[in-house]
């Protein structure tokens, strides 16, 4: 009986996810597509949890369901015509063939996805990599294997990811035009933000702290902090909680900077540059994670605000005549 219930659950979960994905790709109304995408993110985080990956489920819930939804909505709002279809479109054979081909491709993908999901559920006992990770985990000072892999065994990879985020933030700041104002916030929004923003900050700090021994970590905490910044922007604080001028640049660089600092100190102390000494490993990882959290959150809020920030020492940028 229990197995039947689980199978029904899995079938409905996969069917709902795939239908939401198809709907969000094929609808012409862009705002509707974003709403489908938010629901799709919810379901995806459930799938991750079912596949026993709570860290990824946390990240998907925080980034996919909340933050990406807000970003996409802001992008759609800037779009002039939120309907993606020409008004009178005669029937065209090329369009019909292309549509059929893409739908068949989607069905094929759905079958492959279902097969992969079933395979991942009844996973083969091929856990050689897991055994190696758990064997070396005590030397890292953390007990969550995901944090150990991200910030100790593969720390170089994470540092380069943060560098990619920094490059993205620089790109957004270079070409983004200032976003139009939102509808004026009323009492409801003020009341909501008064308890929502502190709750988001506390949850983010909790996830950062718990990342050492339980599912959590820097990326999830940063996504929650960025959500707090987005809420601030939506309820009338134009800067979204970010400082301006030189401190903004300091915040954006602090993720990669923290990593580089720690690794260079290791190098000058005579070790290989990501080889933390065992007694300090836990604290070093927490330090790097804190700086990474602040920097990723700042990057995400900059991407949401999307305007040309002030110059390094205050004052407006010169008008960019080549924009638009």
């Amino acid at each position, binding site marked *: 009986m229990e197995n039947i219930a689980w199978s029904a659950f899995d079938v409905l979960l996969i069917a709902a996810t795939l239908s939401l994905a198809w709907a969000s790709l094929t609808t012409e109304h862009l705002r509707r597509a974003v709403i489908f995408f938010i629901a799709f993110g919810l379901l995806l985080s459930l799938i991750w949890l079912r596949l026993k990956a709570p860290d990824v489920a946390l990240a998907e819930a925080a980034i996919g369901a909340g933050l990406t939804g807000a970003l996409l909505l802001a992008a759609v709002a800037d779009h002039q015509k939120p309907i993606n279809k020409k008004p009178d479109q005669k029937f065209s054979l090329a369009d019909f063939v292309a549509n059929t081909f893409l739908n068949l491709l989607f069905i094929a993908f759905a079958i492959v996805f279902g097969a992969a999901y079933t395979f991942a559920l009844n996973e083969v006992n091929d856990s050689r990599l897991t055994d190696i990770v758990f064997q070396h985990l005590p030397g890292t000072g953390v007990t969550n294997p995901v944090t150990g892999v991200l910030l100790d065994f593969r720390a170089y990879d994470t540092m380069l990811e943060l560098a990619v985020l920094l490059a993205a933030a620089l790109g957004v700041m270079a070409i983004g035009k200032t976003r139009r104002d939102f509808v004026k916030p*009323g009492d*409801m*929004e003020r009341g*909501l933000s008064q*308890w*929502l923003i502190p*709750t988001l900050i506390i949850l983010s700090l909790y996830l950062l702290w718990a990342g050492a021994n339980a599912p959590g970590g820097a990326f999830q905490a940063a996504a929650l902090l960025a959500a707090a910044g987005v809420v601030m922007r939506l309820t009338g604080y134009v800067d979204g909680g970010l400082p301006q001028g030189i401190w903004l640049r300091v915040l954006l660089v602090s993720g990669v900077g923290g990593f580089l600092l720690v690794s260079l100190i290791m190098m000058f102390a005579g070790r290989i540059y990501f080889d933390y000494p065992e007694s300090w490993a836990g604290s070093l990882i927490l330090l790097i994670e804190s700086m990474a959290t602040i920097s990723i959150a700042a990057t995400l809020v900059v991407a949401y605000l999307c305007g040309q920030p002030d110059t390094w020492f205050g004052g407006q940028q010169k008008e960019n005549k080549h924009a638009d």
Partner: protein
Amino acid sequence: MINLIALCLILFGLFFFIAGSIGILRLPDIHSRLHALTKADNLGLGFLALGLILLSGDIFIAAKLLLAWLLVIASSAASAQLIAQRARRRERDVWKI
């Protein structure tokens, strides 16, 4: 005995959840559907959380379950107000010529 009480509570919760979902499908207007959403679903979640608290046995997990329910209530209430205000604005604009 505790298992029996928890079972009853979870059954109540499931009943309210199904009632809320059917209400959202069958009620005629956005404003009436909002009633089904906030009242029925949050009550269902409350009963479910109470049942799970009885089953969990650990005080910290019970506290977290309670916190989850309270957060959902607070955010549901605010979201329902915001959605209703947006619907109001849209209905007002339709009549604007």
